[in-house]
């Protein structure tokens, strides 16, 4: 049922900061079966890769080309950053913001906001000042604010890092739903259990390079490289 389809082509993608190459050079045809999980140790370059794919990270060299024009522009994509960025406004206003940018009318915005606030369980803090929310609430708000845009491609950079077990499951349910409804997800996580639950395919990153890719069952059950194998067993890989 799941099959890999090409979604983007990376050509010599390189990100250098202060003279140090932190990503790439990567030349790779990125394929996805719908829910791509990017794995790798801290500092491997996961955040940088997602940022580069989305286009918020300035590339030092190379290019990213999206296969489908429906995925190519910012308005088809949404991003939940590793450190959630809260507008200095209320939760309600944070959620409304992307829709206001698109010029939706008030009633429409109100309906959507109430819908999403319910789905991520933030009803109780609807009129609270967003920068004062707890870490987990911020994560949920950032996720809802991304989903309210109805993106074709959704980037998630450790969206459950600050969430407790229950909230994590709730969010996973939401993510599965939107994924089933047709949104491609590209997500990083350090929770291997979560990765196994959600992934349709995996990108394993090491030292700024794509080390191994493939459908989730293959990669998890029969990793081709010793580093990936060690990483999935919880060992330290360098």
């Amino acid at each position, binding site marked *: 049922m799941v099959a890999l389809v090409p979604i983007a082509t990376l050509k010599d993608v390189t990100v250098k900061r202060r003279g140090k190459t932190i990503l790439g050079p990567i030349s790779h045809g990125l394929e996805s079966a719908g829910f791509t999980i990017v794995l790798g140790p801290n500092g491997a370059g996961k955040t940088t890769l997602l940022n580069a794919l989305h286009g918020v990270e300035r590339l030092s060299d190379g290019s990213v080309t999206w296969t489908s024009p429906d995925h190519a522009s910012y308005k088809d994509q949404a991003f939940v950053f590793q450190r959630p960025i809260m507008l*200095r406004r209320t939760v309600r206003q944070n959620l409304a913001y992307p829709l206001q940018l698109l010029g939706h009318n008030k009633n429409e915005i109100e309906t959507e906001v109430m819908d999403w606030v319910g789905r991520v369980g933030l009803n109780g803090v609807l009129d609270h000042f967003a920068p004062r929310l707890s870490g987990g609430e911020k994560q949920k708000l950032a996720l809802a604010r991304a989903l309210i845009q109805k993106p074709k491609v959704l980037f998630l950079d450790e969206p459950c890092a600050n969430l407790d077990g229950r909230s994590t499951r709730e969010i996973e349910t939401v993510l599965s739903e939107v994924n089933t409804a047709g949104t491609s997800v590209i997500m990083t996580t350090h929770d291997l259990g979560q990765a196994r639950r959600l992934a349709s395919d995996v990108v394993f990153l090491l030292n700024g390079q794509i080390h191994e890719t493939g459908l989730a069952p293959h990669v998890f059950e029969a990793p081709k490289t010793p580093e990936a194998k060690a990483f999935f067993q919880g060992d330290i890989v360098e």
Partner: protein
Amino acid sequence: MNEIWAGLLAAFHLIVTLDGDLVEITLRSLQVSLSALVIASALALPFGTWLAIRRFRFRRATIATLNALMGLPPVVVGLIVYLLLSRSGPFGVLGLLFTPTAMIIAQVVIITPLIASITHQAMRELWAEYHDLLISLNTSNRQRVLTLIWDGRRALLTGALAGFGRAIGEVGAIMIVGGNIDNATRVLTTAIALETGKGNFALALGLGFVLIALALLVNFAIHALSRTERHSTW
């Protein structure tokens, strides 16, 4: 000490009797400086914000110029505006010299760099915070500027107040371009200069206290306004 006491008394007397000249001069001061503030803010807030979010070739030079302009002595501004607006100057035909409009122009020139510079400082921080999100949301430059101005409005209010304080307390420039004409361009500061010139310290000091009170009042009013507005959200 004696003189300060006499000044306080004079101020008290002027205020309780609602002295006609005082009211007129005070209203004109407010009129001129608030108009200058509105115009300067309309220029400086978007410009300062734009400067914070755009990378372009002469950005550093622009910021340096802005900071230099901020230190420009008001008298010099007054002199330049005078020469421009003089009947023998390039904009003489407009007949604006020695009118409140000329004073507003001079004050706009004086406070715009100040407000723009404070705006730039505040907006740079906010932009660093919002950068990734606003890019990800595919915002236009206009939307970015508006979002930053709106969400940074508290810092900007401080900038605007600094501008207002500088405008209403300024005397050198408006003396030159306004001419301190009774019933036409006399404002608190020029009236103070005039009374000081007559050795009439009590009245000068009285006007000075009115000026201070006015500045405080406007500050409180604006802060109170922003607080009621924040109350629901914080």
